[in-house]
């Protein structure tokens, strides 16, 4: 820990509009950062990553902490806390709710926001949002824009996330299967080694129309387009899936999980949903 760093007290700005927050950020760059719940930044700070000289708090901005149901989508303000959203039936019943219930612990979920979970880059909500075809509403300094979640990391230029737009057309049902699964290093209150999610619809010919996504360790969230294309073929096989999936996803080794482990485990998790097989192992004792 750099002792000197942690004792610097930043200037805290509390803007009331998106535009003001953006202007402050631009004014003080590079010595500025936005903060919402601050739960992740608290962990980083403990590890020695000091706050910027100007911390711009987003939680007082009007409209960022509310949820509105529009005709085609639900607009979720970026500063809504995970716990607030878990309490919303429209969110809670979907895999996004499941993803949020699996994040950290109650104290963190009470402070942490969906915007923060998205913008820190590896949040567990990301694969669920990608699978659900969510879009991000952003302010880029001049206008509001809408971008797919998976394009946030590659967006050209600075933006402030203002809301998540969750399509209402996509409801899980008998035909439409949604799933979210997370592996951490223990059952709860753990950063994920891997979070996988998918929305799919099985076709009559054995093919599967699917949107598949994952986030793992320090990897950026990934939409699995080759794996999706693979299962869209009638007669696809697990072997073909593994091959396509490995082309999508080449995870690297990290201190607490190897890339190979994340690759294998993710493939198994996807297949457990996509592959219909009456030979699935049903518990029981191993017989040598």
């Amino acid at each position, binding site marked *: 820990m750099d002792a000197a760093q942690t004792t610097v007290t930043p200037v805290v700005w509390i803007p009331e509009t998106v535009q003001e927050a953006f202007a402050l950020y631009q004014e003080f760059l590079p010595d500025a950062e936005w903060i919402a719940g601050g739960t992740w930044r608290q962990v980083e700070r403990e590890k020695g990553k000091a706050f910027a000289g100007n911390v711009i708090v987003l939680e007082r901005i009007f409209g960022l902490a509310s949820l509105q149901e529009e005709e085609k989508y639900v607009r979720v303000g970026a500063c809504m806390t995970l716990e607030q959203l878990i309490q919303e039936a429209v969110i809670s019943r979907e895999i996004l709710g499941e993803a949020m219930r699996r994040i950290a612990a109650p104290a963190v979920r009470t402070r942490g926001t969906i915007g923060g979970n998205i913008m820190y880059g590896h949040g567990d909500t990301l694969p669920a949002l990608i699978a659900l075809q969510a879009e991000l509403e952003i302010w880029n300094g001049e206008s509001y824009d809408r971008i797919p979640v998976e394009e946030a990391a590659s967006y050209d230029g600075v933006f402030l996330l203002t809301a998540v737009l969750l399509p209402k057309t996509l409801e899980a049902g008998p035909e439409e299967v949604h799933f979210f699964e997370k592996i951490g290093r223990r059952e709860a209150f753990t950063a994920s080694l891997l979070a996988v999610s998918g929305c799919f619809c099985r076709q009559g010919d054995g093919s599967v129309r699917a949107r598949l996504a994952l986030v793992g360790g320090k990897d950026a969230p990934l939409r699995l387009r080759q794996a999706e294309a693979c299962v869209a073929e009638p007669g696809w096989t697990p072997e073909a899936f593994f091959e396509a999936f490995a082309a999508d996803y080449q995870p690297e080794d990290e201190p607490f999980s190897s890339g190979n482990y994340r690759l294998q*485990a993710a493939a198994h998790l996807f297949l457990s949903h996509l592959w219909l097989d009456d030979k699935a192992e049903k518990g029981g004792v191993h017989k040598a």
Partner: protein
Amino acid sequence: MKQPEYQRRPDAAPKVTGALKYLTDRFEENMLIGKVLRSEYPHARIKKIDTSAAEALPGIHAVLTHHDVPGLNRFGIVTPDQPVFCEDRVRYTGDAVAAVAAESAEAADQALAAVIVEYEPLPVLDSVEKALDPEAELLHEAGNILHEAYYTRGNLQEGFAGCTSIVEETYQLPRQMHGYMETEGGVVVPEKDGGISVYMATQHGFKDRFQLSRILDAPEEKIRIISSPIGGSFGGKDELNLQPYGALLALKAGLPVRVHNTREESVRAGLKRHPMAITMRTGADENGRVLAHETTIYADTGAYATLGPAILEFAVEHASGLYPIPNIATTGVSVFTNNGVAGEFRGFGGNQVTFALEGQMDRLAERLGMEGAELRAKNMRKPSDAGPLGQEIAPTDGGRMILEDVTAWQQLPLSNAGETPWVKNGRGGAVSMHGGGLGYGRLDPSGGRLALTKEGKLEAAFGFEECGQGIAAVIETVMKDTFSCHEEDIEITIGDTNKVPVSGSTTASRGTGMVWTAVENMKDSFRRQLLAEASRVTATAAADLYLGAGGVHKIGTEPSLFLSYKALAEYVQEGDIETHTAFDFPVTPDEIDSGHYLYSFGGVSAEVEVNLLTGTVRVLDLKQSVSAGPVMYPQGYRGQIEGGGIMALGYTLMEDAVMDEGRYQTENFDTYLMPGVKDLPDNVTVKPREEVMEGDIHGPRGVGEIGTIAVAPAIAEAIYQAIGARPHKLPVSREWVLQQIQQRGLLPWNKPEKIPGG
């Protein structure tokens, strides 16, 4: 008197309401903040230390280095080899180089940053292999081997010659962290007489006093250690930690100084469980009689000794556990490295070696085509058998009793067989034997004091510490049992060297037994004194009086309370009614160094659920049978066994303080993971087997450690039963489990040759 299963422990209310002030919460007027500068390198020469800039900063009252230690610049309970402040060399990143006392934490941080230390990095010996390389730099004058320990009996070669089945395996055990909630620290107050009061947690106040007196070059009487209550220890606060720095800074500054490790500092400087590599070769004849057992233990003890030698000896002693195998050769080597210091930790070397031993029994049973329980029963010790080092021990049938329970539990149906896809369940069992007390040849005194205070309380004074384990509740229960009094009649005095008698350390599962024995020793005299005084002041025949709730009662009167303790206290001077006892922890009469005399036994049955997709292992059911004599305080007993079981579950499945080139990679609880509530088994059973042999006079054995010992091998066997692969390395990683699942083709699409990288 049988105790109810649940009763409120004396420290419960202040703990659960948060009202309790721990020693690290203490505040003194004009108190300074002390901080310690620790080494930047795991191994380096110190070329220069310059504190002048730090001293010149505002608000700084003291800056100390090795030049400022008036006495011995070393600490270590048995062998003082750890520098208080390093002079010319650092051997791990927890080594202290300087310390400051300042008016604020910020000023202290700035002063630490201003201390200039020039290092010349040296090759980092971050493994036992590197440290034992003949070319390796010597970490200590006597070399890189801290200690070697051996035990042999019979003839190993002949033993193996008679075996039809032999199994061999090397077991790898991780560096577990105690993970107490309260990190090390407290306040040191300089007193008017030139002495100091040290308000800091320890497991042995008098030992801290001794060590500090050696460092400060001050008489022990000038040092008062106030050491309870403690927010968890598990062995980790047995050795000195921040006491020397707090004491030296307070004396230099002439003001009270608070020192308190951050979690990161605690991880870096604190003790851990010894990582060990244990190779065992074990053989049996065709009837399943184990004839030969060879063990080699390499322990990574880190940079300094603390109790490393004793822990190694404990592991060597317990290498054959409950099985009186005729031919044994055990070798233990404890090796200095530039890793974090390993030392005292609940189980004390028994956890590591029992994982290996019980793993051998399961492997051997499979080779013989036998159930594990059957092989264990065939080889189980008899009540009159000698101890594992051939020493005479207190006769006990504990091993048979706990194995009986484990064997029965193995027959229970699996909880969700055939219901959930993608999981396989398995159940495993294991047993253990654990010596209490410090062992033959080691000073292991105990004692206590009972007195009537001037306020009319029955004071029970012991030199034990309350670190959450419940010794205060044990003392209260034993007192209530013995004198038929109420809890409000009792005053417990612990954790202050100025007020308590010598009772020895609060370690080695010894507290409960020593409290019981002390009260047994004192009860007749104390009762007699109370009744005699009551008889005198009331002019009533002592024979008509007896002790009960609130005071002295009289036969045949209603209400029977005749003279309250409060009233009695008014008639006597303080000290008039007081009795003492001093004795040693029972040891074997045989002159066998480190050999124990009193043993407890623990049997474990674990059911796991293995997720075939991810390799995740969940423990669904954890049952423990414990033979440790009569239960004193049922709730505390249960707490120790359940808590110990969960600690061991963490050891088995997730805990490892990973080091890379002598630096911790797990600096806080975000990366060093311990079980959370969702990792706990759905079902936990604790079954005390209280029976002791006829004529046994030793009362309760402590249960602070036994619940942690046999859990890992039981879970490992359960994993084997689920997926057919035997873990030999802890923690059992999800990655390893998944590899085994894939290699065995346990998933329908899981043909190993078809999986990229599989």
